[in-house]
C-alpha cells in the first residue's frame, strides 16, 4: 500500500500566515472581513461578499474586467490586496445604480447596445465612471485613450464610445462639437448627436 505524504517533493508543509481583519465600506455598507493577507480586493469582493459583478479576467491588470472604484478612483482590483484598503470606500458595478434606477452610464450602455459579453461590461462601465469622475476626457480621442485599460476582443468598442460620449455630452463635459467631431472623422465612428 502506497503512502501519501502531505507535502510534495518531501518538503515540510509551509505554515500559513494568520488571517487579519480588514474594514471595507462597499457600496455604502460597512464590512469587516477576516482574511488572509494575500487575498486580492477582487477575490474579497467575489468570494467573501458574493459581489460577482466584478469579474476576474486576466488576473494580471491587463484586461480591466476587475475595475472598481476605490475612494472614487478606478483601479484593477486584481492587482491590489484587500488588506491595503482598510477603511477605503469601494464602489462596484452593483453600487452604481439600482434595478429601478440605473446610473446614467448603465442606461447609456443599454441605449447604445454597448455590451460586450457580460465579462467585460461591468469593468467597462466602472472604468467609464472613473473617467467621468476624473473629468479629463473632453474629446472622443481622449475617451478612447482613457478607456484603454479595458481590453476585449468582442469589438463593441465603438458603441461603448458612443455611450460614454452621450453621458459626457449630457453632463456638459465635452468641448465644443467640432473638437470631437473632427476626431470622430478620423476614428471612423459616427458622432453622437449633441443634446437639442
Amino acid at each position, binding site marked *: 500500500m502506497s503512502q501519501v505524504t502531505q507535502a510534495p517533493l518531501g518538503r515540510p508543509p509551509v505554515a500559513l500566515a*494568520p488571517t487579519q481583519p480588514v474594514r471595507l465600506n462597499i457600496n455604502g455598507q460597512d464590512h469587516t472581513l477576516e482574511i488572509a493577507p494575500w487575498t486580492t480586493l477582487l477575490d474579497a469582493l467575489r468570494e467573501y461578499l458574493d459581489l460577482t459583478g466584478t469579474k476576474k479576467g486576466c488576473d494580471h*491588470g491587463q484586461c*480591466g474586467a476587475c475595475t472598481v472604484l476605490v475612494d472614487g478612483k478606478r483601479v484593477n482590483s486584481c492587482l*491590489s490586496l484587500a488588506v*491595503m484598503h482598510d477603511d477605503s470606500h469601494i464602489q462596484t458595478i452593483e453600487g452604481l445604480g439600482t434595478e429601478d434606477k440605473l446610473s446614467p452610464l448603465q442606461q447609456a450602455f443599454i441605449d447604445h447596445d454597448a455590451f460586450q459579453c457580460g465579462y467585460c461590461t461591468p469593468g467597462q462601465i466602472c472604468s467609464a465612471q472613473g473617467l467621468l469622475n476624473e473629468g479629463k476626457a473632453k474629446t472622443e480621442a481622449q475617451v478612447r*485613450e482613457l478607456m484603454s485599460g479595458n481590453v476585449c476582443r468582442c469589438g463593441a468598442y465603438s458603441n461603448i464610445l458612443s455611450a460614454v460620449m452621450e453621458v459626457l455630452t449630457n453632463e456638459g463635459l465635452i468641448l465644443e462639437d467640432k473638437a470631437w467631431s473632427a476626431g470622430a472623422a478620423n476614428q471612423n465612428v459616427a458622432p453622437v448627436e449633441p443634446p437639442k
Partner: protein
Amino acid sequence: MNSFTFTQAMAVAGAVQDKAAHPDAAYIGGGTNLIDLMKENVARPTHLIGLKKLGLDAIEALPDGGLRLGALATNADTAWHPEVESRYPLLNQAILAGASPQLRNMATDGGNLMQRTRCYYFYDLATPCNKREPGSGCSAIGGYNRVCGILGTSDSCIATHPSDMCVALAALDTVVRVSGPNGERTIQFEDFHRLPGDQPERDNTLEPGELITSLDLPAKGFEKNFSYLKLRDRTSYAFALVSVAAAMELDGNTITDARLALGGVAHKPWRDKEAEAMLVGQPATAATFGRVAAKVLEGAKGYGANTFKIELARRAIVRALKQATEMNQVLDTNAFQNSNP
C-alpha cells in the same frame, strides 16, 4: 502566491525597522508590479510592509523653486498636478504615456522607480534568467529579444527598464531622497538605476532596507521646448520599444541648454551627457539632431530581433528634438496623443 504576513507601516522609521527585522520582506506602495510578480512566483516575499499610510503623498514646492513629489503620490495625481502640468509638462506627458488609467491611479512615484523589467524570460520560471536567478544564464541573448536593450548591455543581461516616467525624471535631473537603517541620503537620478554588468539581479543602487521618500525636481522644468516621443507596438497601453525625452532651451534658433534621455533601450533610462553638450551652441536643425543621434547610438549593439531598435532610436531622437524645437504638438485638447504623432 506564497504565504506572507502584512503590516501597515505608520511611520518611515517603523517601516525601515520592520524591513530590517524580516529578511525576506518587501515594501509595498501601489503594488501594481510587485503583486503581479508574486502571482507569477518571480517575487516571493514572506512579509509585506504597507506604505500607503506613511503620508508621503504630498506634492509641494521646494524653497529653491523646485518641486517635491512624495514617494507615495500616485502616478495619476502627479501627472495631473497643476504644477507638474504647467512647469514640468515633459513629466506629465511621460507618465500619461505609460500603463492605463487604472494602474496610474494605484502606482506610486517611488514604486515607478522600483518596477522590474518586463523581459519575457524574467517572468518565465521555466527558462534561465540571470536577473531572476543569478548564474542561471540569459535566455534573451540568442532568444526572442524584441523588447530588449541595445545600449549598455552585458553578456549577463540585455533587459530594459520599462518605465516611461523615469525617462523624463532622468532628463529633468531629479534627485531621489531615501531613508534607511543608516539615516537619510540623496541619490542623483542618473546614479539610481544600474547597468547590468555581471550583477543584473541588482536593478539599482539602494542599500538593503532603504526606502524612497521623495523625488525632488529642480526648478528648471523645460516647459517651453520639450517632447516625450514613445514608439510601441500599439497606440496605447504598451511598453516602449523606444522612447525619447527631449528638452531644450532656445535663444532664437540657437540651442542654449538641452536634455536627452531614452527609454526602452537599456537597463536604465539612458542619458548621454556628451550628446547633450553637442547640442549646446548649435542651431536647432535636422543636421545638428542627426549628428547627435548618431553619437548616442555609436556603441549600440543589436541582438537579432531587437536590432531594428538602433535605427528606430536614431530616427526617434531626431524627431523628438525637432518636435521640442517646433512645439507643433497640440497640447491643450489632445494631450494624450502627443507621444504618437
